[in-house]
């Protein structure tokens, strides 16, 4: 399924800086990753780590400060106007708050038809059939609900409508930014299953941004962990969850609560809070909270390097190597 030769999306040294001078905040501070066709890359991290900004920068909703973004081999970093709009038909985004991302005073079928009407790719009866088909696919009966207003729907249904809208132009790639975090678990499960079905049916490639580790693992083939604007670990999801190499990943997983009374409790809890991105620590950005930090961590910034094929970590003293050295 995965085409390993050419990534669909190639991001290199992407930075996004807000503000100028000493008020400058690097929300994204130089990240690189690839997403291959047909795969789902999960992007996890705590609030303020830059995961949403990354998603928005890829869509060029916020302007990248430096670095390059290539979609299907085309550099889109500096595209503007019509060519940028063209690119956005290939890559769509689904946002966190399903209710505010739909216009409450528009009818559902008009919302879903908007991209088609802008581009006039299909018109007339063909257009209506396509809209009905899209709504059916996401589990909204177009005959019953098509003429209702967006405000008449619950959060889960609004998220279904958002998905239908994002699929109207048959994009190659979807960027899902915390798309289930506002939903109840029973509705969340429906949406996650729906996303998985549509991904297979439409051959989509996903960047799935979320803070919930269990949700990310459920949908992702590979997972990237962000901390304070940088990627600290990236690898196949089963491997990364089983044997995290970065201390931050380990603590993050340790803090995730499992709905199981027998799950181990009170593992090591990470002390403190993330430092301000306005004044990030020197060297490794995690060193101020890392129990394994040494002098080298303050002086030298760790770069992403391979610990196993496809599994990279940005740490001078990755956990897997430490434990194997002890053993």
């Amino acid at each position, binding site marked *: 399924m995965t085409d390993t030769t050419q990534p669909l999306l190639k991001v290199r040294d992407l930075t996004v800086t807000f503000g100028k001078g000493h008020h400058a905040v690097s929300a994204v501070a130089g990240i690189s990753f690839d997403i291959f066709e047909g795969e789902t890359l999960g992007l996890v991290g*705590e*609030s303020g780590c830059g995961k949403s900004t990354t998603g928005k920068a890829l869509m060029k909703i916020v302007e990248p400060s430096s670095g390059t973004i290539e979609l299907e081999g085309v550099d889109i970093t500096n595209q503007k106007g019509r060519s940028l709009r063209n690119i956005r038909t290939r890559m769509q985004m689904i946002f966190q708050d399903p209710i505010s991302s739909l216009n409450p005073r528009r009818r559902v079928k008009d919302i879903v038809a908007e991209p088609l009407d802008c581009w006039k790719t299909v018109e007339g009866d063909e257009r209506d059939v396509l809209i009905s088909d899209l709504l059916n696919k996401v589990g909204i009966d177009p005959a019953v609900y098509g003429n209702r207003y967006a405000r008449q729907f*619950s959060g*889960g249904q609004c998220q279904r409508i958002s998905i239908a809208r994002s699929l109207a132009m048959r994009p190659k790639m979807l960027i899902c930014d915390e798309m289930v975090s506002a939903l*109840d*678990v*029973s*509705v*969340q*499960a*429906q949406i*996650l*299953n729906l996303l*998985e079905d549509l991904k297979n049916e439409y051959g989509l490639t996903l960047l799935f941004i979320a*803070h*919930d*580790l*269990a*949700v990310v*693992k*459920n*949908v*992702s*083939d590979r997972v990237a962990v962000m901390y304070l604007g940088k990627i600290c670990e990236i690898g196949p*999801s*089963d491997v990364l*969850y089983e044997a995290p190499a970065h201390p931050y990943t380990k*603590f*993050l*997983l*340790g*803090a*995730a*609560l*499992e*709905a*199981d*009374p027998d*799950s181990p*409790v*009170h593992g090591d*809890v*990470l*002390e403190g*809070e993330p430092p301000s991105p306005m004044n990030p620590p020197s060297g490794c950005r995690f060193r101020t909270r890392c129990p394994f930090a040494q002098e080298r961590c303050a002086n030298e910034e760790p770069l992403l390097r391979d610990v196993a094929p496809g599994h990279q970590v940005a740490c001078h003293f990755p956990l897997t190597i430490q434990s194997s050295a002890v053993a």
Partner: protein
Amino acid sequence: MNPDKLLVVKDLATTFNTSAGPLPAVGGVSFDLNKNETLGIVGESGSGKTVLARTIMGLQPRTNVTVTGSVLLNGHEMVGVSEAEKRKYWGTEVAMVFQDPMTSLNPVMRIGKQIDETLRVRLGMSKDAAKARAIELLELVGIPSPEQRYGAFPGQLSGGMRQRVVIATALACSPKLLMADEPTTGLDVTIQAQILNLLEDLKEQFHMSVVLITHDLGVVATRTSRIVVMYAGRVVEIGTTREVFTNHRMPYTRALLESSPKVSNPSHTRLVTIPGRPPNLLKLSLGCSFAPRCAYATNQCHQQRPELQSAEEPGHSFACWNPLPSKREAATQ
């Protein structure tokens, strides 16, 4: 009254009188809470968890609401008494930590003053004594350099720090019962773990009972001794945490547990979903509220509401006409 029971809730019902008709947000809930116990209340949005907590506190709106039943808090009745009467118990008998640490503090008042206020009004402390105690409390909840933070405004603190301040305020008068309504929702996982550990430590230190209200089954799994599962304003299952997680009888409890993704499952595990969505409380049927979404529903379920019935394990009850087989039954089959 049993001296071990700190809280006894009996047939508590809260109905909002809306323009569209009466809305039974809490429809007859009974449970009790022992001293030094942590009880979890779980349910999805709209299941009535927060309204239940507010009704127990006596914080329901003054108008357009009808509360019936009884809440005995350490022997004091909280339903149908005046606000002045209830105020006697707020802070010293029961205190509440609200969901949103961003809005539960006054943004234009220094955090120290917000803790002081409770101490001076409720305990009649002098200004200096209240300040000293407030700094002690800030230190107790793990706020670094409490003397300096005493003068900080809420906006200068992160969400996790603000929730610590809210907890400090709640603990100011050493309440016997702490109601924590989604205390960690909206916080990051590492901060959530810190706050939950803090609550557990403080519970021991202050000899409190805690009611932990959450939608997150992970939060209650390892930190409560008993769980109440709510659906559409009613208790559908109650029991020890272990029983509810491993030997649940109500199909809704199982559906809720199975629909949440787990870190221990491999990627791309198909999730079990509950079809449909929670009922409109304005149009509740006569039968079981979960029946329209339930795979085991029969005619009886649609027409007659099941009451809580006891399971094998003492203290474990569920409201269902066609319960799932218990572990013992499953073993004999």
